[in-house]
């Protein structure tokens, strides 16, 4: 975002708080925790998350809206309220609220009336979820949590604010994988492969009709295959839950999480869970902006196209593009009798730690840090 500060504080950098006597023991720990949550950081990730969550909310509401269009709402059939005192609205008001929430979700994505739109979306989605035990699914619960934290975080009057919403979203994003993985780890049927094997056996007719090659189908129906596969699934979930917390493993964990959700989406009916969980990965971006510099030559059409790609895809505002027309001295001496001025100037990136990368290495770094291209570019970066 043009003009945004480049000196945002990194909440993960372990900076000391303001000058005041440090207490020891538990009070000291609480002080440090308090300081960590209140530390001002760039909240660009929340803006991006709001933008991505809007379509997820519409997708979530669609079955309710579709039923309403067909003249049915939840109470026309079996439902089970959590509490007798929970308010139930007249039919027209209920349906109106669902449409209002869908409109508010679109407004969230478009950045219109963001505070009100987020609050309305959260209120209606949460109200609808808690109307009946039959409405509650894990993906919907996660959606309500994310909307709730976004509502508590407020709107983007400024992109810099206290770090606590990010930490809370990270905790929730992590707990989804941790709780799921741990529940499977302690279940001998799950960790031993019985559950995944039986699920595959139960859908063998669909599997037979699928384009999956016969040899793969036979493998998937082997009991022994699931003894190993189940452990890989459980440990992957637990790895993602833990590895997202450390910078050294975060990119791998995020990349694995995307693979994991694509696999789940392809093999199971999970409503909006995959989209939501992938969107929520943006909260793991280091909350500082424009702290990587991309230097391009404005005279080079390839560089200009690359700069345009950055402007389009840099949702987290991580790059500052600087246009520099290199002098012959910068380009270096010509080779094979070429005029130095004819040699193609190289695009380069100065990373957060001052490292300078040039050419394709620079391009791969940039692509690996843009949300929409990261999943494709991260393996290239590792491979290089």
């Amino acid at each position, binding site marked *: 975002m043009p003009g945004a500060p480049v000196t945002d504080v990194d909440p993960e950098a372990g900076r000391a708080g303001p000058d005041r006597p440090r207490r020891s023991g538990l009070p000291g720990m609480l002080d440090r925790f308090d300081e960590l949550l209140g530390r001002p950081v760039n909240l660009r990730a929340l803006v991006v998350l709001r933008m991505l969550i809007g379509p997820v909310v519409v997708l979530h509401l669609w079955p309710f809206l579709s039923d309403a269009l067909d003249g049915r709402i939840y109470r026309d059939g079996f439902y089970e309220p959590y509490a007798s005192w929970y308010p139930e609205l007249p039919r027209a008001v209920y349906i109106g609220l669902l449409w209002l929430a869908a409109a508010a979700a679109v407004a969230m994505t478009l950045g219109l009336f963001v505070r009100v739109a987020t609050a309305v979306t959260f209120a209606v989605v949460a109200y609808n979820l808690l109307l009946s035990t039959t409405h509650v699914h894990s993906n919907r619960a996660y959606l309500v949590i994310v909307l709730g934290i976004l509502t508590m975080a407020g709107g983007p009057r400024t992109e810099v604010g206290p770090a606590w919403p990010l930490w809370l979203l990270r905790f929730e994003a992590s707990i989804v994988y941790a709780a799921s993985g741990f529940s499977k780890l302690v279940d001998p049927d799950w960790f031993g492969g019985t559950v995944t094997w039986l*699920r595959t056996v139960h859908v063998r007719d669909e599997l037979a009709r699928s384009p999956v090659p016969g040899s793969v189908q036979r493998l998937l129906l082997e009991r022994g295959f699931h003894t190993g596969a189940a452990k890989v699934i459980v440990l992957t979930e637990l790895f993602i839950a833990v590895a997202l917390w450390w910078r050294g493993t975060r990119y791998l964990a995020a990349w694995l999480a995307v693979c994991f959700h694509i696999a789940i989406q392809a093999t199971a009916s999970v409503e909006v869970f995959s989209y939501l969980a992938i969107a929520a990965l943006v909260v793991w971006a280091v909350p500082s902006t424009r702290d990587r510099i991309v230097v391009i030559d404005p005279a080079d059409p390839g560089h200009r196209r690359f700069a345009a790609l950055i402007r389009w895809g840099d949702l987290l505002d991580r790059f500052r593009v600087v246009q520099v027309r290199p002098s012959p001295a910068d380009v270096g001496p010509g080779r094979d009798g070429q005029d130095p001025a004819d040699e193609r100037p190289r695009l380069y990136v100065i990373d957060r730690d001052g490292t300078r990368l040039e050419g394709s290495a620079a391009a791969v770094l940039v692509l690996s840090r843009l949300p929409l291209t990261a999943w494709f570019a991260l393996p290239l970066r590792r491979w290089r």
Partner: protein
Amino acid sequence: MVAVVVVGQLVLVARGYWSDHKEFAFQMFPEASTWRADVVRVTAGGERIPVSKPWAGYRWSDMVATRGLRYPDVRHHADAGVDNQLAFLDAALDWVATHTPRDRETVYLEATVTYWYNDDDPRVVVLRSQDRS
């Protein structure tokens, strides 16, 4: 506020190990269990009439169209575990018993449920709605 959310979330995760519906506990794909049920209406005369037959203008498949309960006589995957499924079926029996005012003959509904917890041998439980009076 942060501490309240964190503690609350951890409590809900722990609660998932004993609650039927495991709300906010994020136990995804917990079982490969399956179930089926013979659901009948029991009349004052002692007749046991399958709910697969419409009665008094009611149709089970229209009234109970959610959470895999629409066709209980067909063996199904227990979507979020057997406990979850049995709790929903139990609640559905009560709901139907209390939302069918044109039915003048049924005393209660009863489901004889056979379930297979993962690859365990089948087990049978009988669920019964509240009496209609």
